[in-house]
């Protein structure tokens, strides 16, 4: 396992919900990343946003890690759930909420 792989693996195991995205939750720099941020904020779950634009190694590394060619990528409890299309589809069908609840993801205490 390469260093970047180990780092990504550590992130998705240390945090219940991790969003690899372009930009940050406060300032998304891509519409698709922004959509997923809005969904997660709406659901009110605590998540860690990782900005892949900070490092080319990370940007490529996360694509290799998940065998998924695009950003954003959402991980819940160490498991890849999907990119923007899948997250939106699951959210609209109410499945994302169920998935989070089944995995025991904590709501943010704002």
């Amino acid at each position: 396992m390469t260093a970047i792989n180990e780092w990504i693996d550590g992130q998705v195991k240390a945090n219940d919900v991790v969003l690899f995205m372009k930009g940050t939750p406060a300032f998304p720099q891509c519409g698709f990343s922004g959509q997923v941020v809005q969904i997660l904020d709406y659901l009110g779950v605590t998540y860690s946003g990782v900005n892949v634009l900070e490092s080319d190694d990370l940007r490529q590394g996360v694509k290799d890690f998940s065998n998924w060619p695009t950003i954003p990528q959402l991980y819940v409890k160490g498991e890849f759930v999907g990119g923007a299309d899948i997250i939106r589809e699951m959210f609209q069908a109410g499945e994302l909420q169920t998935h989070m609840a089944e995995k025991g993801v904590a709501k943010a205490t704002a």
Partner: protein
Amino acid sequence: MPMNASAIEKLIKDALPDASVTIRDLAGDGDHYAAEVVSESFRGKSRVEQHQMVYEALKGNMGGALHALALQTNAPD
């Protein structure tokens, strides 16, 4: 370089011959597409697996030549 819709459709059908593929050019710029792919080979697979099959068919163009392809995949009803 952007890809045209028929090139995208051909790559998907080469890999999934039974697939019904509907492609819309979202922005009219040849760079932002939405594709609906229906194939028997998706049955019993998770959404992630279904999309990975389509990405595999696109042979590395996704995220490269193809900037944006909104995907919806289903097995036939």
